[in-house]
């Protein structure tokens, strides 16, 4: 009885977890191997990149701009009583570049483009479109998955940079026009602690997050089972797994990139 319960609630879930992780890794390895094998479907890469950019830009702007504003208010709440108001923009820019821009952009991309990819590929699987491509001697991973990988790998850092500027703009507006911070002090403070290494680190993070969205969303969609319900489950799983993975991975990436500084 007890052994049965342990098997059902501990052993099986742990086994299933590692089984799924193994499958995702194998899928990613297959896709990355095929990335270097011609043909590369340029039209699909452009279509997917355009799709990611157009569907994600508004959600990214709409989430990052208020976060920039909030960050400015909270930073001033701490720094103003200490008389170091001029450090506010330095603090905001570092947090924005290193953490919030890549993380928030990736979360919105996972929610918008990732779910869309999982649902689209899942529907194609259910309707035998993926099998049809295979039968027509066109490798579906090359034709469907690789363009999505490349699109996310390219668009995630681009959207992160846009998110950074939008977030900083929000912060600037609140600090200067609402809280009365000196414009010159704000702009000078931006460059006090920020280094190119931070920008590079943020872009590296967003590339990794882009790949995570690509691998998980495409895997979940590509191997859908169970018809329409399966497609819904795949889209839901994709976004949950992506965001959880970002948050865990973000700690390790931050540790590697900045903890010793």
């Amino acid at each position, binding site marked *: 009885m007890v052994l049965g319960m342990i098997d059902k609630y501990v052993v099986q879930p742990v086994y299933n977890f590692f089984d799924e992780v193994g499958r995702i890794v194998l899928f990613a390895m297959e896709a990355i191997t095929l990335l270097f094998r011609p043909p590369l479907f340029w039209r699909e890469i452009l279509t997917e990149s355009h799709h990611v950019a157009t569907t994600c830009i508004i959600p990214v702007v709409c989430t990052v701009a208020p976060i920039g504003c909030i960050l400015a208010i909270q930073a001033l709440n701490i720094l103003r009583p200490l008389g170091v108001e001029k450090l506010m923009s330095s603090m905001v820019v570092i947090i924005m570049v290193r953490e919030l821009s890549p993380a928030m952009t990736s979360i919105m991309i996972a929610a918008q483009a990732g779910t869309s990819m999982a649902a689209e590929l899942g*529907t*194609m699987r259910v*309707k*035998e*479109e993926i*099998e*049809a491509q*295979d*039968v*027509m*001697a*066109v*490798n579906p991973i090359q034709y469907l998955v690789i363009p999505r990988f490349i699109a996310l790998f390219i668009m995630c850092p681009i959207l992160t940079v846009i998110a950074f500027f939008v977030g900083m703009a929000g912060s600037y507006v609140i600090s200067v026009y609402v809280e009365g911070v000196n414009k010159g002090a704000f702009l000078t403070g931006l460059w006090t602690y920020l280094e190119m290494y931070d920008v590079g680190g943020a872009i590296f993070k967003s590339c990794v997050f882009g790949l995570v969205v690509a691998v998980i969303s495409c895997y979940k969609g590509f191997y859908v089972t169970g018809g329409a319900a399966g497609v819904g489950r795949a889209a839901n799983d994709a976004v949950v797994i992506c965001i959880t993975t970002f948050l865990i991975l973000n700690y390790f990436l931050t540790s590697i990139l900045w903890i010793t500084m």
Partner: protein
Amino acid sequence: MASKEEFRKYETGEPIVTVRNLSKSFGSLRVLKDLNCDIKAGETTVFLGPSGTGKSVFIKHIVGLLKPDEGELEVMGRNVPTLGERELYELRKHLGLAFQLGALFDSLNVYDNVSFPLSHHTRMRQKEIKSRVAEVLELVGLPGTENKLTTELSTGQQKRVGLARALALNPTIVLFDEPTTGLDPILCTTIDELILKLKTELGKTFIVISHDIEGTWNMADQVGVLYQGTLLRYGRNADVRRDDNIFLKQFFGRTEDGPMIGV
């Protein structure tokens, strides 16, 4: 190596697909059991049987989408289960499969669907591709539908576009997975007549998976009857039709009385 050899031309009546002791299980469920048959070039071979007897699984083995647990399957001289991806894709360029539900790409229009294999596997110019697409659409009775979205088409039209796409590369073997399932009797007849017409006009090898008995008698040269994963009978149309086997009599007579159990 077989894969680097050219695909030779097969004479009518020569075995083009050879199946030996083919078995396949999914978990504990044995779907195909020791299948043996020779499918001849230039003929129409129909595999009949009740739903869930492994007909679609069998066709998926022929195109290499599934690998058997045991047995051999040779298509145009290639042992399909042993082929690597490149060799399998070379073989598939000689096979055209019309899927049960069409399997058309929703995001593309009829032209893009039908031209898909042409733009990927030939060096044809746009003008030549356009002309070939128009030609195969004409063959399946859907001329001038190039710009329609697949979602604007009826089920029967979608099946015919799927068939046009399967024919686009001028394959040696054309496979149909239940071409008349879900269609009304008039459309069923239209599709059966279309297959007959294509056979007459193109002289290709057709392999059809079906449970439409009347349609089978009209179009088949060879008939195979699958039941619970076993090939009950395989032979010439007239011979199978006249067979005294109690299972076949029940199936052809469309009656519940007999040993055959619906799945």
